Each structure stands twice: as structure tokens, then as C-alpha cells.
């Protein structure tokens, strides 16, 4: 295949180049077919796809545009409980996963890299990667997993909820950053670095709404995320007040309700209310959240040190596809989307989806092999 830039090193492409010594699946190139799987995106979905495909014996190339693996999960302090008794936030596991991916002999990781060209069909896609240093790498792969994830909803569209008006109105993702910075110590509000002792969570911020510029859908994970984040405060100091203002509290499934109950046990207060607005307090205090309490039927306002907006996820696809150059017609055959790029989902589901996409990619490779070079060795 031909590269298309001065930095091209076709021989070092995803397929070519010296395989690592103990790479178990020596890629076969029968009739020019590749069994290598290209994974675009190094978030939890992409990493899981890469690792699972490699574990099943397929060589993998993983391309991540950022300098680190991990995606959004790497930006979280903790994640919601994933197993019985579903009580406390737990480690995200992202470092262990990134480590497993980076050290697996079957996976080649390209950081600070992107895909600039894709052509071909299952079993013989030709792809060109652009490395951070400007170098181009070309090569052949058998199937592609697209795991480019999501971007957070732009909260600047929510001035009515005080975002941009007060530094102490933050998104859930920004709260994760604050919590990471605090690293188990007091979580401090941005305006003056004082410890946040009254925290109000505003659910469905710019979501489930027909208003122009809002998201019409429910991102599904943010109720659980607020429950978890409220625990960040309560687990540190039960005296910190946390108020979650929600309409429907959506924590479905096998453990969601236990996690919600656990938050109540820890003293997180839940109130059914669709928030009207968040305004700056006229005096020295923090932002003021006003809402009708749907149970008491009263309009109330509370002052907070910190207001956290549960803004949604926007898949990095569709109009702002990361790969607008991706040949559309190639999508149904041999290119499989996985993770939050498909729809909003939490990290467990993204991992599950990544693993599923890995299997789909394996099948595509196997089918191509069948069509081109007789029965697959697995069928012997």
C-alpha cells in the first residue's frame, strides 16, 4: 500500500514491522489478508476491545489521539459500585486496564496519534496513521473497532443554571476533577478554594428537554454519577450537606437501587424537583438554586457552596464524526462502533460493548479468511 505523506513509513504500518517476540498470534497474510484488528480510541471501550481481541489471539493496533490511554474514565475520581452490596464508590480500574493493554504482547499502542485514511474491505483494510511527531504509518488491518467515545455537553449553554455566571457552578465532570485534586481530602470550591460544605446536585441539566440546544434524551448514567459524587462528600465528612434535586431518579438495574439506598443511609438528601434556575446570590454567599418542591408544592431556594450540574454525553459521531473521511459504505462490513460513541452509557456497559465489538471484528476477520483462504483453523 502507498502512504500519502512525506513521513510515511509503510514498512512500520500496523500490520508490518517486527512482531514482538512473544506475540502469540503470528499474523498470517494469506492472500494479502490481515487478521490484525485496529481499534480507534483508547477509552474503556477501546481498551477492552483491544485487550479482549488480543486475548482471543488476534494482533491489535490501538490508536489514541491523546497522550494517555483511559478516555473519560481516567478523569474520574471513582466510579459507582459495580457489585453486591453496591454501597460505596470504587476505583475506576482504568490504570490497571491501561497497564494490561500496554503490556500485552499482542497489542501495539499508538498514543497522540490519529487515523487519517481508511480504505478497503474486511480482511484487507489499508489504513494510514498519523503519529504525534507528524510521521505517517501505513499498513493493513482486517477489521476496525471505532471507540471514539463522547464529549461532554457544553454547559455554557446553560446560563440559566448559573454555569459561566458563577465559578461555583460546575459540571459533574468538573467535580470529578475537583475530587481527584482533593484526593480524599476536602473538596474545594473553585471561587475561593474553601471547602464545599453545602453541595446541590441539579439533575437533567440541559437534558430530557425539548428546548433548543438541549439534549432531548437521557444520558442514563448521570443519576448514578450524582449519587456517587454526593458520597464523595458524605464519606469524607457526614456533616457536609448534599442535596440531589431530581425529577425521576434513574438508577435502574441489579445494583442501582442498593446504591441509592446506600446514599440515603449516608445522609444524602433527595428531593423531587425540577430546578427553575441558579442565580448568584446578591450578598457574599454562594449560588442560589431555586426550585418547586414537588411534594410540598412550594417554591423554595437554597444557597450552596457548590452546585453540580448533571449535564449529558454527546457521542463523538454523526455530524462531528472523528473520522469524516471514513468510507460510509465500509461501515456495515468490518467496522464496528463500540462504547459511548454509539449512545450514552456507563463504563461497565462501554466495556461490555467494546468486548462485543471485539468479537464482531474477529468474526469479520474469520469470514474474510473463509472467503479468501478456506476454512479457518479454529474449525479443524
Amino acid at each position: 500500500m502507498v502512504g500519502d505523506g512525506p513521513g510515511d513509513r509503510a514498512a512500520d504500518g500496523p500490520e508490518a514491522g517486527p512482531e514482538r517476540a512473544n506475540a502469540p498470534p503470528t499474523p498470517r497474510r494469506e492472500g494479502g489478508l490481515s487478521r490484525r484488528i485496529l481499534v480507534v480510541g483508547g477509552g474503556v471501550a477501546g481498551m477492552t476491545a483491544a485487550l479482549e481481541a488480543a486475548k482471543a489471539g488476534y494482533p491489535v493496533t490501538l490508536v489514541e489521539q491523546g497522550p494517555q490511554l483511559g478516555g473519560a474514565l481516567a478523569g474520574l475520581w471513582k466510579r459507582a459500585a459495580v457489585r453486591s452490596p453496591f454501597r460505596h464508590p470504587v476505583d475506576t480500574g482504568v490504570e490497571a486496564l491501561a497497564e494490561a493493554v500496554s503490556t500485552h504482547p499482542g497489542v501495539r499502542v499508538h498514543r497522540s496519534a490519529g487515523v487519517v485514511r481508511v480504505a478497503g474491505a474486511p480482511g484487507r483494510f489499508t489504513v494510514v496513521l498519523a503519529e504525534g511527531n507528524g510521521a505517517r504509518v501505513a499498513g493493513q488491518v482486517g477489521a476496525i473497532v471505532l471507540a471514539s467515545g463522547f464529549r461532554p455537553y457544553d454547559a455554557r449553554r446553560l446560563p440559566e443554571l448559573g454555569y459561566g455566571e458563577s465559578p461555583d457552578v460546575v459540571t459533574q465532570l468538573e467535580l470529578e476533577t475537583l475530587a481527584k485534586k482533593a484526593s480524599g481530602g476536602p473538596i474545594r470550591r473553585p471561587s475561593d478554594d474553601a471547602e464545599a460544605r453545602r453541595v446541590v446536585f441539579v439533575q437533567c441539566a440541559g437534558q430530557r428537554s425539548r428546548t433548543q440546544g438541549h439534549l432531548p434524551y437521557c444520558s442514563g448514567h448521570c443519576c448514578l454519577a450524582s449519587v456517587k459524587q454526593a458520597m464523595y462528600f458524605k464519606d469524607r465528612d457526614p456533616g457536609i450537606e448534599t442535596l440531589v434535586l431530581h425529577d425521576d431518579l434513574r438508577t435502574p438495574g441489579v445494583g442501582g437501587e442498593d446504591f441509592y439506598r446506600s446514599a440515603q443511609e449516608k445522609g444524602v438528601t433527595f428531593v423531587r424537583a425540577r430546578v427553575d434556575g441558579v442565580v448568584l446570590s446578591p450578598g457574599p454567599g454562594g449560588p442560589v438554586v431555586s426550585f418547586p418542591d414537588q411534594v410540598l408544592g412550594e417554591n423554595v431556594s437554597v444557597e450552596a457552596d457548590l452546585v453540580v450540574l448533571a449535564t449529558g454525553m454527546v457521542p463523538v459521531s454523526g455530524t462531528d464524526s472523528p473520522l469524516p473521511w471514513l468510507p460510509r459504505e465500509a461501515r456495515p462490513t468490518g467496522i464496528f462502533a463500540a462504547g459511548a460513541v454509539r449512545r450514552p452509557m456507563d463504563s461497565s456497559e462501554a466495556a461490555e460493548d467494546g468486548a462485543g465489538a471485539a468479537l464482531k471484528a474477529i468474526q469479520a476477520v474469520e469470514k474474510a479468511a473463509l472467503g479468501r483462504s478456506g476454512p479457518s483453523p479454529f474449525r479443524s
Partner: protein
Amino acid sequence: MSEVVATTRTILVVGGGISGMTAALEAAEAGADVLLLEKGASLGGWVSQLSRGHPTLCPPARTLEDELRRLGAGRLRVLTRAEVVRIDGQPGDYTATVRLAPPAPREVGNADRSGDPDASPDADPDAVPNPDTGERKLRVKAGAVVWATGWRPYDAAKIEPYGYGRIPDVVSSLDFARLADPLGPTGGRLLRPSDGREARRVAFVLCAGSRDKNHLRHCSRVCCAAALEQAAHVTGHLGDEADVTLYYVDIRVTGSLEDLYRKVRSDPRVKFVRSKVAQITRDAHTGSPVLHGVATEGGQRYARVHDLVVLAVGMEPGVPGDALPLRLVTHAGGFVAPDPANGAIFAAGCAAEPLDVSRCVQHATVAALRALQVVRRVGGVEG
């Protein structure tokens, strides 16, 4: 043709619902030997019974047809009326004990092969019919197991204040699916059980037995969406006559199912009352069910008569935690947890967690992959 029933390179899939079918197909398509065992007479699980009542949520019927069409492909064998009752062994080398119900199991998928396991050379000597029941036992080997035994509805009669079983016009969502089925007993007309009159005032009672310490602690995830879908079915079916009420605490539909919720919510024929129903009684004169409770928004107390009351019952594991054929790590409600201690037994679909069909498919694909990884290692064949 001397086919071996199974070897340690076989993936055994237990349960032929959407999850088991998906796992079996996905694994077979990736080149594995697969044996799918279903205890019932036919494949499809609950989806084949529910699909006609839920056209927009996800077109389960279509999915199922697609899947069935694909069944012919690959190294996939299916036995129905075959219930897995016991599993011994360890990863890479399991032996499952299977109870074969009479009549002889039917094999789908490969017409040229006999479905009778006796015909295969390594058929188990136990496969001699029990003289009383006609049952036979069979042992099969497998390297990995996909456990896809699905769910069963929570027994609505256990929710004592709701009168299921005492008040004829209080039915479960599954009963409703039968009523709404054009091929069902009423030809799709919503005729209430007590007197066969067409139901017009229909109530849906959400979280019937879920999110409740006295019953199922968990939220069953699918019942909100299913109730919305059923409510939409009533309005679509009855037109302006329809008078539907949903009693709920939280409407839990995520993603773009919000559109379904918005559509039903804005329908003037459908009322939403935020309240867990306290009690259902029977009207002394008309025999109709009466719902009692307090609307938590607005505070009004209600005692509202309906023609038909549908309880959105929850999901519990099809095979309860204490009846699993071997010890597995489960969540509190008995759903099989993903846990390394479970070895090469991978739960798929509703055996693992309450899931809708699309999530089941996603989930089962992963179980197939994990099983595949195990048998690949066992087979020692280069990947």
C-alpha cells in the same frame, strides 16, 4: 455421520432465549463448536411471547426471526426439552448433566443430523428413559458454559394488597401482553377477565413488587418502558375511548426511550400519577378494581375505579440463586455476577441482570467472546 455431542472445546449454552441464541450464534460465527440446550419445547424465551405487544421499544420479533434464520449456519447444535440440572468440573473441562424431557428432543439447525443423542457414539449410558417419567439423562462435556437461563416474573400474588388472584380484573403485564396479542385468546381485544367487557379505563401500576424491601429489592429496569409501550397500545387500540392512568414513582427509561415517554406523557388520554399504589379493592357493586393511594405531587387522595389494572411485575432470575446447578457468585437478588470465581461459566442476559432485549444481545455477545477465549486456550490452537 458420527458427531461427537461435545468435547472440552465445545461451548455449552444453557437457555434458548434471546440471550442464549445470541451467544450461541456469535460463538459459532467466530468458529467455535456450540451446543445450545433449551429446557422448553421451542427457542425464543420470553421475547417470543412478548414481542407482539411491544412493537416500538425494540422490534424483538424481527430480531428473533433474524436470529433464527442464522441458526442454520456453522457448527451449532440445538437440543430442546433439555434442561441442565447439574454442572461439575472446572474451566476448560466441565460436565453438564442434562435432563431430557419426553418426547425425544428435537434438533434444530442441522436437518441432516439426528437430534437423538443416543445416535452419537459417546452418548451417555444414563440416557436410558426413566420408566415412569420417560425422562432421560445425558452428560455433555464443555470447555466453557454460557449461562443464559433468563428471568421469570415475580409472583404478583405475593403482593398481598394488590389482590392479584382475588380480583379478576387485576392482571400482570405478562397477562396483558397475552390480551393485547392479536393471535392471543381475545384476538387482541382488551376484554377484561371478569365479564368479558372491553376495558376502557386501564391502570398501570409500576414497581409492582420491585424496589421494595418486602419483595424484590432491585429495580427491574424494563417494566417502565414496557408499561409505557402497553399504555400506548391501549390508546392506539381504543382511540378516544381510552382512559389510561400510570401510577409510578420514577419513570426509568434511558437514552432515546425518553421519546416514547414524552409521547405517552403528552397524550391527553393518559394520566400520570406519582404514587405507589397502596391497595386495590373490588367495588362492591360493579366488581371493578378500585385503586387507593395518595398522589405525592399535589397530595390528593384517590380511590379510582378502573376496568382493568395491569401490574408491571418485576424480574427475578429464571433459575434462583439457590437452585443453580453449581455454586456461583451471585448478586443479592440471585442474578449471576461477573466474578472470576465463576471460572468459565459466563452469565448472559437476564440471568445476569434485568436487561432489555438490545442490552441482552450486547451482553450475550460478550459472554460468547469469553467462552471463546477459554475454548481457544483449551484447544491450544493458534488464534
